[in-house]
């Protein structure tokens, strides 16, 4: 069996790359893709932990399903932004989004 610490470390690397992507991206869709990479990191770490053989009394599945549910909700948020910005004929560059400024 593979050591779970390796899974957690690789998951952490993916998570860090996702955070870097969110910080560095300007395009709205690319930011959402970066968040997906963060979720992938979380899932790899969670599965690595689960496969270590430690009994979690089923609580692991709640955590994993939570991650997947949040990932699915994020896609709905993206569609919402897409409809909103298309309706206002705005660009997808987040650095040009200033309509909420006071």
């Amino acid at each position, binding site marked *: 069996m593979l050591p779970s*610490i390796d899974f957690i470390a690789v998951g952490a690397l993916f998570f860090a*790359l996702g955070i*870097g992507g969110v910080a560095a991206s300007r395009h709205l869709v690319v930011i959402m*893709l970066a968040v997906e990479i963060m979720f992938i990191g979380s899932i790899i770490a969670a599965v690595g*932990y689960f496969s270590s053989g430690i009994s979690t009394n089923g609580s692991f599945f709640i955590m994993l399903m939570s991650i997947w549910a949040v990932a*699915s909700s994020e896609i709905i948020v993206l569609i919402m932004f897409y*409809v909103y910005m298309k*309706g206002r004929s705005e660009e997808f560059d987040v650095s040009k989004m200033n309509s909420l400024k006071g």
Partner: protein
Amino acid sequence: MILLLMFYCLAALGFFIATFVFSEKSVYKAAIALALVFTVSSLIILLSSQVFLAVLQLLIMVGGIGTYLIVAVASETESEKRHAGMATLFAVFAVIAALLVYSIVGNPAGAGAVVQNINSEIQGAFSTYYLLFYLIIFLMFSAAIGSVVLLKRIVNIVT
């Protein structure tokens, strides 16, 4: 040993493809790169003998990336430059990765202690507050669907 080697090869491959999500000028190609990362992550999960979870990961990919591809094609515009600043990306990545990996691997008590700590944290959080987690997920879904409905009305009023 072979499994460990395969695991690290897949992890390196996945990481390499994940950088294409940010280095590509086309959002469509970035979404395809993300689909490949999902596939590689599913293979990584398969290496831990969790076949069911690996298949679930693929199913999430089919649903999620399908939607992303549609949005990416619809929002595709010609761009001369990348959508992400690579210097900022790798600077933030280096700092966060150093902090996370050091806290996991560089623990003087050893890797076993880290896993035990995570175990106690998860046991405490999820066995005591699992109803709250369900509630949060329900609220998130409701908020997401509700926002789409509200937005549709707003767009109708504006147009």
